[in-house]
């Protein structure tokens, strides 16, 4: 059985032709999401990117039953996402999560653990270890009214991990965290993936997405603007990036074909066509340059993202 994304339905997440039309209630454009299809393979980290108002959060809310879709089908771990029991093995961290503020950290985790149907004895064991995992050890009895924004974010991560779900959906998980916290979240996502957990990550932090995601879907104005393997999206076809150390200018034969030339001290960085690699290396050797690296040219996700949104393809979708 295949869906519109050309795939079988055994994916961790499958969204096909999702649509949300707010009609007259809309503040901006009536259709917040138009024909969005996303497929997330199991045991991968999938990034959902897009500028503000692109439809990322609405899409996630439709998937989780928080917003009623105007159209489309939503599948979680092979089941209809809106059927009873379908979300029992799914953890979710909302953007800037908030909790009942008069409860303590362990009371909050006990609540969400029971909602996730984690047996009580397992829950008692999981709570301290999860708090330690997110850097909140020793805070079991602290009332949440005393928590900082970053501590609430960490607690949100802990509640998403309760019951060791097969799929975790994270909406801006690094929001409100300091650089060390952001690094911890990245490492946590990679650990989850290594243990076979699927992560669907919605984020504005492109460096975070680039560092951890296997695949991305980029939304713009409620439509899929691009999707695919992150390496395929970012590698610039037919171009190789060369870094070489040496004094003086590049040989004339190299300068004639080099593009995007940049100089960092005595290191020159430039791009050349793939078919000229052998000749360029020989010419650099002959001119006394020392090669530092030769690798496929790759955009940063930031560059790719900016270019994509500045020049959207007609019809709104570019696939790798």
């Amino acid at each position, binding site marked *: 059985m295949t869906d519109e994304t050309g795939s079988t339905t055994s994916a961790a997440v499958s969204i096909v032709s999702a649509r949300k039309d*707010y009609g007259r209630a809309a503040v901006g454009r009536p259709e917040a999401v138009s024909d969005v299809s996303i497929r997330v393979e199991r045991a991968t980290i999938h990034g959902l990117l897009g500028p503000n108002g692109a439809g990322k959060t609405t899409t996630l*809310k439709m998937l*989780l*039953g*928080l*917003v*009623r879709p105007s159209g489309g089908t939503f599948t979680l771990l092979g089941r209809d996402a809106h059927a*009873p*029991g*379908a*979300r*029992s093995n*799914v953890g*979710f961290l*909302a*953007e*800037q*999560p*908030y*909790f*009942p*503020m*008069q*409860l303590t950290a362990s*009371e*909050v985790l*006990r*609540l*969400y653990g*029971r*909602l*996730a*149907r984690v047996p009580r004895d397992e829950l008692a064991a999981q709570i301290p270890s999860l708090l330690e995992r997110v850097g909140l050890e020793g805070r079991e009895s602290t009332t949440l009214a005393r928590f900082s924004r970053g501590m609430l974010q960490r607690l*949100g991560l802990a*509640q998403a991990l309760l019951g060791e779900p097969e799929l975790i*959906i994270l909406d801006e998980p690094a929001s409100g965290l300091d650089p060390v916290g952001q690094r911890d979240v990245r490492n946590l996502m990679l650990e989850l993936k290594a243990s076979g957990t699927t992560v669907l990550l919605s984020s504005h932090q492109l460096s975070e997405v680039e560092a951890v995601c296997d695949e991305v879907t980029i939304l713009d104005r409620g439509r899929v603007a691009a999707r695919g393997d992150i390496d395929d999206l970012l590698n610039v076809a037919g171009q190789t990036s060369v870094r070489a150390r040496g004094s003086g200018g590049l040989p004339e034969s190299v300068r004639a074909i080099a593009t995007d030339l940049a100089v960092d001290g005595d290191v020159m960085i430039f791009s050349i066509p793939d078919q000229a690699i052998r000749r360029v290396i020989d010419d650099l050797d002959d001119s006394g340059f020392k090669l530092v690296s030769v690798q496929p040219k790759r955009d940063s996700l930031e560059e790719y993202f900016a270019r994509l949104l500045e020049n959207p393809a007609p019809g709104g979708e570019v696939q790798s």
Partner: protein
Amino acid sequence: MTDVLLALVTAVTADAVRRKVVWVVVLFAGLLSFVAPSLPSYGVGVASAVYREVAIALMFVTALVVTVALAATRIPSEIERRTVFNVLARDVRRWHYLVATWSGLVVVVGVALLAFTVVAMVVGGVVYRELMWRLFQAAFAVWLEMGVIAAVTVGLSSAFGPVTNTVGALTFVFIGHSISGLLAPPSEHSAPRWVPSLEAFNVIAPVAHGSGYGVGYALSMLGLFIALSGLALVGASALLERRDL
């Protein structure tokens, strides 16, 4: 399902019962019950009966303030702050969330009423040398009425903000108590008995001036509480089910 409901009720109760508003209102009402015996009775009857009447009135106002303050704000604030997302994104139905929120609030109002009733009984016992156990009957009736008001307010808060909910709740209380008179035929003092009225929970006369009410009347109040609360919660669930969060 039971475990989910219990988990939510426990959390709502623990969170709400620690809110300052609950205990500030109870403390204020407790202080008023201390000064109530010093009020002039204006010769309206036995002094202890007047005290019981004042205590029941304070009980009602205390419970109403606590009920409306908690019920009118809780769901709108949980939706605005996205607290509700962490609950409903799990395998929890919206009606579970509503019923559990209502139940938790009813428990907290019950605790506040119990605390105030104990204070009022102690004051009555010290001043009038009389064990006013029938105040618990009044507390029970007020508690059931607050359950209905909480259900209506929670129902309103499935669709509206705190201000509308508060105005709606107070309007409901006013109409609920006066509907019997409003619908009464010109020749009668009150409407037919089948017209549901919050006056059914008004037990000032038998508790303050009489010998209390019987089990049959308690059961009829319980029945009205279940019917009105159930109706309000069914409507609330339908409203919340249709809402985009």
